[in-house]
């Protein structure tokens, strides 16, 4: 059974680096791993996407090992406004789209 696993919650303080890992068995060979951010009462918003190794953009980095069975979203120097729920999204064998259960990140002053 395809499953995507993330920690349910994480706490951090402003200015720290936060790493959230998603484990995804049965990931499809040729599809991207994508991470989204969701604030209360809003739709998820795209953060970053990668296929392998490391990807970096202006808000985050994404680390993907060679076997692609996990991925780690890295948020450098978080602020209070980064408090949100973070989801990984993968495509598993058969083409099914699977979201992780979401990690609720709480950033404290």
């Amino acid at each position, binding site marked *: 059974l395809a499953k995507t696993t993330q920690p349910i919650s994480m706490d951090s303080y402003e200015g720290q680096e936060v790493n959230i890992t998603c484990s995804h068995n049965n990931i*499809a060979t040729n599809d991207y791993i994508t991470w989204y951010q969701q604030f209360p009462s809003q739709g998820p918003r*795209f953060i970053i996407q990668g296929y392998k190794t490391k990807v970096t953009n202006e808000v985050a980095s994404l680390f993907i090992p060679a076997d692609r069975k996990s991925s780690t979203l890295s948020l450098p120097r978080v602020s209070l406004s980064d408090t949100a729920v973070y989801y990984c999204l993968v495509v598993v064998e058969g083409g099914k789209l699977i979201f992780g259960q979401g990690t609720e990140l709480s950033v404290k002053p």
Partner: protein
Amino acid sequence: DTAVSQTPKYLVTQMGNDKSIKCEQNLGHDTMYWYKQDSKKFLKIMFSYNNKELIINETVPNRFSPKSPDKAHLNLHINSLELGDSAVYFCASSPLARGNEQFFGPGTRLTVL
């Protein structure tokens, strides 16, 4: 100039009723999706359309019927609403199918009494 819009934002109705949620995207994307987010925040894909054709149809009761009149619209019709249908429903679109970057609408909170 909202990219992905949904109407209504809130929908409160009685069990057994039939209701529709509308979705429109002005991004020129080929693929549109419907997701259900339950009270525990789990996001599950329900349907996906590519160029008006159904490409993903997850294990969803056949009381749920998507309709895509054109590439920019994907509506969701629900018959005989049940208490368990209460959730937030999100529409999304992407340039290509499968794992491509998706743009989500603001959601429709459906409450079935």
